[in-house]
């Protein structure tokens, strides 16, 4: 991480970049916040560790409008989102100086707390360059430890690979973390009976508090004015009055990014109720791969999104009934 800080200071001082977009040390061991650094000594508060899960490419939409280049630290999965935003001309490539940062899998403090660990005072083993795979956690109620894999975000278990898709420079090595089959959860749900499927989503979506964090964090969800924000829409985007509204909101949110979603997992990471929202997006990805050929959004900038393309011999919609 120190190498990253010195490089960032260097680029800032020699004027190649006007600001650095990274993470600032939080006041708890697990809550660094995305931050802009404009001066070299403010970079002393820069941090990059296992808790820097935020995907910074969406901030680049606004940063591209500022004058001068912005240095942005992107993890391998973030670069897919940046490519997708590039394809849609939402970010300006020459306004971004991309440093591909190494990634050993990002952590979720909710998962640590689910193992019963409370009153966290300090965590060691989450540093970017540490190689150990257990976290030593010092708490008010004694020393605890937790395996790195158990604390990892769900998206890191199905990581798409540690190769950065777009960068100007690479700093820090990565460690492969994929140990689960990407569509396992989706297949498990598809195998359920309609009643079970309905009950599963009814229970999960009943937790939704309509806070829109999933929509506001998603790099593919970058419309200037979202259809759910118009006041002509009588089922409000704030009230969870009836279970149908949550279903419509989440289906349409996933639908609007179908074929553009890079499966970066931010929606599930930020959901305060821990709803596995990626199950919607990943279902669309699986269908698109099966019906229209494998496609990874953001693999390379400029690729044609499946829903803006067609083939003469595409399957008929009735295939959904035959597929069982």
């Amino acid at each position: 991480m120190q190498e990253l800080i010195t490089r960032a200071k260097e680029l800032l001082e020699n004027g190649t970049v006007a600001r650095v977009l990274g993470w600032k040390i939080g006041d708890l061991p697990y809550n660094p916040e995305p931050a802009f650094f404009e001066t070299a000594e403010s970079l002393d508060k820069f941090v990059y560790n296992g808790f820097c899960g935020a995907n910074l490419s969406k901030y680049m939409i606004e940063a591209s409008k500022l004058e001068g280049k912005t240095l942005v630290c992107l993890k391998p999965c973030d670069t897919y989102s940046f490519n997708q935003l590039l394809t849609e001309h939402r970010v300006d490539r020459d306004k971004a100086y991309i440093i591909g940062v190494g990634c050993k899998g990002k952590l979720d403090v909710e998962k640590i707390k689910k193992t019963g660990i409370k009153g966290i005072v300090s965590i060691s083993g989450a540093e970017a360059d540490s190689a150990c795979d257990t976290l030593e956690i010092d708490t008010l109620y004694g020393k605890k430890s937790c395996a790195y894999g158990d604390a990892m975000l769900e998206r890191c278990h199905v990581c798409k690979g540690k190769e950065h898709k777009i960068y100007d420079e690479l700093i820090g090595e990565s460690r492969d973390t994929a140990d689960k089959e990407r569509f396992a959860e989706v297949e498990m749900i598809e195998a359920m009976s309609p009643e079970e499927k309905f009950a599963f989503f009814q229970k999960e979506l009943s937790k939704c508090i309509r806070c829109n964090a999933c929509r506001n964090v998603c790099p593919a969800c970058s419309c200037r004015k979202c259809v759910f924000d118009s006041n002509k829409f009588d089922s409000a985007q704030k009230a969870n009055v009836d279970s149908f509204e949550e279903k419509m909101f989440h289906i349409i949110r996933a639908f609007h990014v179908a074929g553009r979603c890079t499966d970066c997992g931010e929606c599930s990471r930020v959901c305060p109720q821990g709803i596995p929202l990626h199950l919607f997006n990943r279902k669309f990805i699986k269908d698109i791969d099966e019906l229209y050929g494998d496609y990874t959004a953001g693999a390379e900038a400029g690729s044609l999104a499946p829903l803006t393309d067609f083939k003469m011999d595409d399957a008929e919609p009735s295939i959904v009934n035959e597929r069982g």
Partner: protein
Amino acid sequence: MLKIAKKDLASLFALIKESGELYLPVKVAEQTNFAAYEDGAEFDLDTLKSVKSPKDVFFPQSETLYTCKNEGKTIKITPEELVDQPFVVFGMKACDVGGIEVLDRVFLSDPVDSFYAARRAHGTIVALACHEPEESCFCKVFGIDAAEPVADVATWMIGDELYWKALTEKGEALTEKVSSLLTDADEQVVENEKTAIRAIIEKLPYSDLSLEGWNGDAVAEKFDSKLWNELYKPCLACGTCTFVCPTCQCYDIKDYNTGSSVQRYRCWDSCMYSDFTMMAHGNNRTSQMQRFRQRFMHKLVYFPANNDGTYSCVGCGRCVDKCPASLNIVKVIKAFGEKGE
């Protein structure tokens, strides 16, 4: 002081349910939220904080105000029935009870909001002391004693027994109803528990946060500070902090056309949303900085100005845990503290 064994709690809840609805923390899909208790539901008293605060019981996320139906030449307005059955909220922590008191100052001040007032009048709150406070808690900063919650009934979970002490006559009435299951208990055990909890609270990282400089008449200097321009940048303008907060009071009034009638309902709203102050000739808070500033100015400056010094924050730490960009009220207070503004 009375007590009941942890294993008999299910029968205690069943007994309470006989005389009215019971709301308590229930684990659904691995998340703990306050919900109406059905027999056999998996209640969860170990998780310190529910995701959504229990203010939902008294000030629901959405409630219908009235229904309008066109009848011939005129419109028939049928107001929604006010709550008129007693109910019990079990397992509220001291910070959430503090949150309800903040909301009382809003909804019970003249003109009284009768929907809220009806629920408050018919609700009995059984508060549970926090056995193991977490690092994001800072209720001590706002003068709330987590070891001794002040509600209709105070309870402590010590070992595998629940200690029960009624504090108000509503609490006495409830204790009366369930006295068959409660046995006498020794006060001293609870005193030791209180000192243990207070010792832990002293060690919490946020407990020494100082609110110096934040009060009702700090409007001018805090409003024009340049710090807001740096603090708001990572904010995603989502509504998480406002919807998990036990003291947020803002609501929106909207219509829902059901085809045969129109239901006018009230739902929580968030000052962080872009259309919060949208009006016919424009929006007086267009930038996210203004909205971010409004949220914390309201909690730490405007509310104390209108409510003789009471802050609109109870230090529960839910915004600290749940903000996607890790921003929260503690970082704002600290940032202003460091800059000495």
